[in-house]
C-alpha cells in the first residue's frame, strides 16, 4: 500500500522565513517539493557542497589512520575545529611530500657516494688549492688501462659488479677529455653527513605521520562538521525551493506529508502561528511515496525499492509479490538444512546484537528469518538436508511424511511452471485492478477478457469432463472474452483500430506468455543444481578423508564445512536474485506496473 498524502502550502513573511524553516525542520515530517528553477543563491549551495566533499575526503584519510590495535582516545566534538581539519591535513601532507622529495634526492646522492667510501669533501677542496686535482671515474673492468696509474696517478678505489671505480690525481690536466670518459660528480657532503641527513628526514616524516594520527582523535569534530554541512545543504535546498510572491515580501513553499500525521502537523504549525493550507493531491501532482504495509509485507519493502517505487495513483505490489517471493526463494534454495541455517543465524544475530542493531538491519534479519523458514518448508518437498536425502531414512515418521509431500524431479519441474502460471495470472488480475484504479473500469475490459480466456483453457485442459475444450459451454465463455479482447481494448476508438490492437495483443500474449512461463523453470533448475552440489560435497568429504581414526573426522568436517559454506553463499545469492527477476520482469510486466515515484524524504 502507498500511504495517503496531503499537500501543504505554506505562506510566510520574508523576515520570519528562516525561523519558519527551522520550525519546519524541527517538525521533521514535511517532504519539501523541490522546484526546478535555478536559484540565485546557488553559489552558497556550491560552497557547502565543496566543503562537504573536502570533509569527506579528510574523513577517509583519518579513518585510515585508525588501527584496531591501539585505540586513540576521541576528543569532544567541536564543529569549528572540524571544519579546519581538511586544511590541517593538507598542510601535513604538503610538508610530508616536501620531506619525501628531499629524502629521495638524499638517497640518490648517498647511493652515488657509497662506493667511494666516507671522506670529507673539504679535503679534496684543499688538495685542489694545493694544485692537485682529483677526478672520479667509473669504467667497465675491461676498459680500465693499468697504464693510467703511471700517466695520471690513477688509484683504484673499488671494483664492484665488473666495474672499476678509480680516482686520478693530476696537476690540472683535462683527464676526462684525454681519456674520453665522463666525470663522476661527487656530492659536496660526506657519506656520514648524508646518512645523518637521511635519518633526520625519516624522523621528520615519521613525526608528520604521527601528527596525522593525532588528528584522528578529532574525528568526532570532523563528523560533527559534516553533519552541520549536510544540514546546511538541505536547508539551502529547501530555501531555494521557495517561490517569493508579492515583491519578495511573502514566501511560498509547497510540501507533502502523510495524512496520518496531519493532525500532529496542524497542531504544531498552529502553535507556531504559521499560515498553511492542506489539500488533497490532484492527479498532476508528483506525490512522494511512503509505503504503508502490514508487518509481513513491510519486510519485503527493501526488495521492492531495488526496482522503482510505485507512482502515487498506482497499486503498490509489495504485499502481492511478497508471498510468491518467499516461496520462490525457498524453492531456489531448496534445502531444509540451509533454511535452518539461515533461520538460526538471523535469530542468533537478532538476539545477541539486540541493542546494537539499527532498525533497517533488524528488518533485514526478520526477512532472512522468514525466507529461512520458507526454505525449510519447501525443502520438505525434495527432502534435502545439507545434501543428504532425508527421505532415505527408514524412520516411520519420515516415510509417512515422504508419502504425503515428496516431489520427485519431474514433479518439481512441473511445480515451478505451475507456480509461474499462477503468478502470471495473478499479475493479470492485478492489472485489472490497476487499470480500474488509474483509468477506470472500461479500460480493464480487454484484460478481463484475457484472464477469462486463459482460465477457461486451463480449466478445460485439466477437467475435460466439466468443461470440454471448445464444447458449447466453452464457446459461450470464449465469445464474450474474444469480444472484449478485440473490440474493447481501447475504449472510444474506431473498432478497426481496436481490432488491430487486439491482434497485436494476441501476438504479444502468445510469444510473451510462453517465455514468461518458461522463465519459471529457473526455480526448479536452481533447486536441483544446489541440491546436487550439496550432495557432491558430502561424497567428497566421505571419499577424500584418509583411513585414519584421528585425521578422518577432521578432514571430513573441514571439507563439509568449506564445501557447504561455498554452496550456501552461491545458492543464497541465486535464490535472492532470480526471484527478484521473476518479480520485476514477469510479475510486474504482466500487472502493468509502471513505477517511477519519488521516495518520501522529510526535511529534518
Amino acid at each position: 500500500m502507498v500511504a495517503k498524502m496531503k499537500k501543504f502550502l505554506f505562506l510566510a513573511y520574508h523576515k520570519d522565513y528562516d525561523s519558519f524553516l527551522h520550525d519546519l525542520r524541527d517538525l521533521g515530517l514535511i517532504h519539501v517539493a523541490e522546484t526546478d528553477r535555478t536559484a540565485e543563491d546557488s553559489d552558497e549551495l556550491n560552497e557547502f557542497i565543496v566543503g562537504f566533499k573536502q570533509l569527506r575526503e579528510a574523513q577517509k584519510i583519518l579513518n585510515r589512520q585508525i588501527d584496531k590495535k591501539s585505540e586513540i582516545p576521541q576528543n569532544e566534538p567541536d564543529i569549528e575545529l572540524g571544519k579546519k581539519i581538511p586544511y590541517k591535513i593538507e598542510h601535513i601532507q604538503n610538508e610530508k611530500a616536501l620531506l619525501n622529495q628531499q629524502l629521495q634526492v638524499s638517497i640518490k646522492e648517498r647511493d652515488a657516494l657509497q662506493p667511494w667510501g666516507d671522506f670529507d669533501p673539504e679535503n679534496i677542496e684543499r688538495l685542489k688549492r694545493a694544485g692537485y686535482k682529483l677526478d672520479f671515474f667509473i669504467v667497465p673492468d675491461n676498459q680500465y688501462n693499468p697504464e693510467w696509474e703511471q700517466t695520471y696517478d690513477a688509484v683504484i678505489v673499488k671494483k664492484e659488479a665488473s666495474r672499476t671505480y678509480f680516482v686520478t690525481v693530476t696537476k690540472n690536466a683535462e683527464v676526462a677529455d684525454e681519456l674520453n670518459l665522463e666525470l663522476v660528480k661527487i656530492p659536496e657532503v660526506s657519506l656520514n653527513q648524508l646518512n645523518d641527513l637521511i635519518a633526520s628526514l625519516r624522523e621528520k616524516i615519521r613525526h608528520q605521520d604521527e601528527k596525522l594520527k593525532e588528528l584522528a582523535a578529532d574525528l568526532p569534530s570532523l563528523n560533527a562538521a559534516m553533519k552541520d554541512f549536510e544540514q546546511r545543504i538541505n536547508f539551502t535546498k529547501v530555501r531555494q525551493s521557495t517561490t517569493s510572491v508579492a515583491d519578495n515580501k511573502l514566501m511560498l513553499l509547497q510540501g507533502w506529508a502523510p495524512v496520518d500525521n496531519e493532525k500532529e502537523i496542524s497542531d504544531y504549525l498552529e502553535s507556531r502561528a504559521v499560515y498553511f493550507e492542506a489539500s488533497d493531491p490532484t492527479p498532476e501532482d508528483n506525490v512522494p511515496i511512503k509505503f504503508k504495509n502490514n508487518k509481513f509485507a513491510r519486510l519485503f519493502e527493501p526488495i521492492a525499492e531495488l526496482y522503482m517505487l510505485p507512482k502515487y495513483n498506482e497499486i503498490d505490489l509489495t504485499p502481492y509479490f511478497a508471498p510468491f517471493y518467499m516461496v520462490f526463494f525457498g524453492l531456489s534454495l531448496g534445502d531444509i538444512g540451509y533454511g535452518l541455517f539461515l533461520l538460526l543465524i538471523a535469530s542468533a544475530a537478532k538476539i545477541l546484537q539486540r541493542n546494537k542493531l539499527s532498525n533497517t538491519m533488524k528488518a533485514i534479519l526478520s526477512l532472512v528469518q522468514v525466507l529461512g523458514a520458507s526454505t525449510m518448508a519447501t525443502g520438505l518437498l525434495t527432502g534435502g538436508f545439507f545434501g543428504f536425502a532425508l527421505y532415505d531414512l527408514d524412520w516411520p515418521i519420515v516415510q509417512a511424511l515422504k508419502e504425503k509431500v515428496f516431489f520427485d524431479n519431474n514433479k518439481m519441474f512441473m511445480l515451478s511452471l505451475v507456480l509461474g502460471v499462477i503468478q502470471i495470472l495473478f499479475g493479470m488480475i492485478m492489472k485489472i485492478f490497476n487499470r480500474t484504479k488509474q483509468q477506470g473500469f472500461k479500460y480493464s475490459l480487454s484484460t478481463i477478457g484475457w484472464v477469462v480466456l486463459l482460465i477457461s483453457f486451463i480449466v478445460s485442459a485439466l477437467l475435460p469432463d466439466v468443461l470440454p475444450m471448445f464444447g458449447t459451454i466453452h464457446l459461450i465463455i470464449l465469445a464474450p472474452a474474444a469480444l472484449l479482447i478485440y473490440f474493447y481494448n481501447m475504449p472510444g476508438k474506431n473498432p478497426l483500430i481496436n481490432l488491430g490492437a487486439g491482434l497485436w495483443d494476441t501476438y504479444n500474449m502468445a510469444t510473451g506468455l510462453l517465455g514468461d512461463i518458461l522463465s519459471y523453470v529457473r526455480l526448479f533448475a536452481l533447486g536441483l543444481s544446489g541440491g546436487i552440489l550439496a550432495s557432491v560435497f558430502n561424497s567428497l568429504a566421505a571419499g577424500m578423508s584418509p583411513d585414519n581414526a584421528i585425521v578422518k573426522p577432521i578432514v571430513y568436517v573441514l571439507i563439509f564445512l568449506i564445501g557447504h559454506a561455498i554452496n550456501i553463499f552461491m545458492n543464497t545469492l541465486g535464490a535472492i536474485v532470480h526471484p527478484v527477476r521473476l518479480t520485476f520482469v514477469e510479475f510486474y510486466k504482466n500487472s502493468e506496473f509502471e513505477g517511477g515515484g519519488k521516495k518520501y524524504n522529510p526535511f529534518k
Partner: protein
Amino acid sequence: METNLFIAYIGIAIMLALTGIGSAYGVTIVGNAAIGAAKKVDGKFGNFLVLTALPGTQGLYGFAGYFMFQNIFGVLTPEITFFQAMATLAAGLALGFVGWLSAIRQGQVCANGVVSIGQGHDAFGNTLILAVFPELYAIVALAAAFLIGSAIAV
C-alpha cells in the same frame, strides 16, 4: 560398447569444460572491473563481491549436468547404447556452449554495473536484475539437459 561410452564422455567433457571456462572468464571480467572501481569508492566491496560471484554459476550448472548423467540417470556405464551416448553428447554441447557464452556476457553486464557503481551511481539493484537475464539461458539449457537425460535414463 566402449565407443559409445567414449562418445558420451566427450559430451560430458564439453559440458564441464566450456561452462567452467565461461564462468572463469566471466568472474575474471567482473573481478578486474571491481579492483579498478574499489580504488574510487569505499565501502562498496560487498556489492562488488556479489556481482563478481554472479557469472560463477554456469560452471556449477555444467557440473550439476555431469552429476545428473552420472548418478541420477545412470547412463555412464559400459552398457550405454549408441542412442544414449549421442543424447549425452547433445546435452553436453547444448549446456556447454550456452553456459560458456552466457557466463562471459553476464560478466560484461556485471562489469559495467561495477564501473557504474565505482563512478558513484547507485546501480546495484538494476545491475542485479539485468545480469540475471543472460543466465536464464544457461538455466534453460540445464533444464533441457535434465529433460534429455530423463528421456534416456536407465
